[in-house]
């Protein structure tokens, strides 16, 4: 195919991809509105509708990611635009899978749709969707595994945090004898336990993600660890989840403290993904982009 035709084909495919992505973001937005309504009114109909929309969005999002894979001719998680899209999709899918066990519980969908919408809008408004070739250092087998596992663990930690937040909100209501948001007294502890089980599932994945990142850095730059902010934040996230798992073995820490630590772990994970230099900026510390120690 002549180059000019090739380029207009690529531009056309990209325009379809972008329209689909905007549509998906719109559906995330609708489901978020429904979940907010569910939160305020405690009506399960709104929650159910929100979850149905999440299913539709997730289904379309899988299509979008397959489309991007075909368009780029490579795994679709190498630019921030792509990883944000991947993040939104994997978080939604993980929640929908977990929610299968808790049929009439919809409240965690609020956090999930909020994050999926935030990630999608950030990608669409602030990042370029260009399909550029990989820089030589990224072209590695380790890198692909590193990203896949890291994002898988992120999705799992997000859902765990959403469950934890729901639990903290609902527990006092149940104590007062209410049955809010589709919860009953006997299912609450089982529901809360799934937050722990998710962390147990995600923790080895995050460990492998850090390990594969180190193996890749060792092959590419000859240093398995250089304390750059992204690496260090991943270590912080890992340490916080280690603290969480330790807390779960101590009766004194097992309840509220462990729940709070789990949510802190989620915040650290988001910092690893998006905000590595945010604290320095907040405190007015200059970032000189030198990270060789």
């Amino acid at each position, binding site marked *: 195919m*002549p180059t000019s035709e090739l380029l207009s084909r690529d531009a056309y495919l990209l325009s379809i991809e972008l329209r689909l992505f905007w549509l998906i973001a719109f559906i995330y937005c609708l489901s978020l509105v429904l979940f907010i309504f569910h939160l305020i009114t405690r009506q399960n109909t709104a929650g159910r509708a929100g979850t149905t929309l999440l299913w539709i969005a997730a289904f379309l999002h899988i299509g979008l990611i397959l489309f991007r894979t075909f368009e780029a001719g490579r795994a679709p998680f190498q630019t921030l635009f792509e990883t944000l899209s991947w993040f939104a999709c994997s978080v939604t899918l993980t929640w929908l899978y977990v929610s299968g066990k808790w049929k009439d519980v919809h409240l965690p969908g609020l956090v999930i749709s909020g994050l999926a919408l935030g990630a999608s809008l950030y990608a669409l408004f602030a990042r370029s969707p260009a399909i550029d070739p990989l820089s030589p*250092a990224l072209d590695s087998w380790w890198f692909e595994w590193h990203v896949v596992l890291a994002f898988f663990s992120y999705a799992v930690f997000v859902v765990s945090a959403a469950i934890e937040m729901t639990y903290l909100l609902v527990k006092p209501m149940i104590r007062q004898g209410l049955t809010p948001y589709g919860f009953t007294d006997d299912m609450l502890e089982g529901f809360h336990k799934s937050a722990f089980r998710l962390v147990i599932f995600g923790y080895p994945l995050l460990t492998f993600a850090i390990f594969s990142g180190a193996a890749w850095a060792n092959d590419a730059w000859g240093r398995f660890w250089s304390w750059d902010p992204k690496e260090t934040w991943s270590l912080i996230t890992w340490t916080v989840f280690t*603290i969480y798992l330790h807390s779960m073995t101590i009766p004194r820490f097992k309840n509220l403290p462990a729940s709070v630590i789990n949510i802190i772990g989620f915040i650290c994970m988001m910092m690893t993904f998006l905000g590595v230099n945010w604290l320095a900026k907040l405190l007015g510390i200059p970032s000189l982009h030198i990270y060789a120690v």
Partner: protein
Amino acid sequence: MRFKKIPEKIKSPAKQLLRWTYRKLASVTTSIYILSLMAVFYMIGTIFPQGASFSDYEKAGGKAIWFVASFDLLIFFSSPLFLCAALLLLTNLGICCYERYPSLFAKRVFPDKFEPTRSLKLTRHNDQSQTEVSKVLKDEMGFRLVSKDNTWIVMEKGLSRRRLTWLYHAGIILCFVGFIITWLFAFEGSITLKPGKAVEIAPKTTGNLSSLWQKKEPPTEWALILDGFQTEYVETAKLDYPKDKFSRLAIGLGWQLPRYEIKSDNLAPKDWKSSLRVARGVKTIAQKTIEINDPLKHDGYTFYQEGFEQRLKVRVGNNPIPLEVKADEELIVPGLDEPVKFGTVRTGRVTRLDGSVDKIKPYVMARSAGKSALKHEVKPERLDLHGSIELDGAFLTLVGFEESSVISYRYDPGVLVLWFSGIFVLITMTLRFYTGYYFLAYNIALSNGSVFLDVHVRASGLGADTDKLYKRMAHLLER
């Protein structure tokens, strides 16, 4: 958890303090505090620019200079404070593993009081039931006998949690050993190799331990030779994507279309490859074509493709002696007011947009680097090998160029230990979390003339499914 008994008569305050410290360091609660301290320390390291000099930090408007200097916050990860905290964590981990080692071989006991979690009605007579249940659990369901008393029989299935947990904690200690070996012995450097020239590795540094008796490592007894160097590129098209949010939304709504366009210098680097040979005298002892992500290992050293350097030969006008300039640097051209800046010479192979692969006709982009040119965003011009361009009235000809490969090297005996222990931690951790483990106590009781199997099951691990276990048990016993 139990501690070794220390005789009562030991009353000296120092020993008591030691005992107290030891007990604290054997506890999981302490590990929570130490790990929290480490997390805060890591955060500090992300806030302050590591490796920056104080003057740069000050110039960039950095705050709390005194505080930053006192706590080595610009080299925090190698500061005594951080290393002490890491050592404390290691001690905590070591004592924990040591204290829990005997319990790995202790028999597991069921708690004194427990209620059956399930009761299954058996059809057999009491005597036969015993053998039947034991046969089903042992032979068909894979349980192992743990203990037995007059009422309860205790069995288990799956890999022991305690042992797996202990093993990966021990694996983390081994990772620390790897880090320590790296910290003591690793050194690194970089060399620039010209094709065909043999170069010995003469490091300028040494590991932290060897620095006590030598400033730098002795040169190697073998030499490294570059037999060939090649760059590879891919042809790219630039996406003309609007910057403002409304136009981006307009694309999403289909009111605007994105566009790809071809720029004059549209090659993006894909790979750099060096054919390396290690030789002792005239004898070749190792050989490999290295590229980014694929280094050469020899004699404890690992050689990485870091980059390359180019020296351009540029003739100005009819001057027979060409001027030399490094790629990406400025050249002062006699007769011109402003310097000229050359980019990287594109040479080697290129994969075109349509997938075909071509040899590149070497060229470089050049432009005036003066203030006015920068202000007016003057576009660079393409200068082919043996071709000429006119820049501000001067004729420039690219008469040739030389390439050398920049290779970084590292000697790090800790990596092997780290890989081994890292993989060990991953395997044991995965088994601990993902596989199932069942701990079961049962007894057979006669009630109202019927025989019942009372079972209490404790399960852990994501692979454990108690409901499924009960169902299978009931099915096998029914049969």
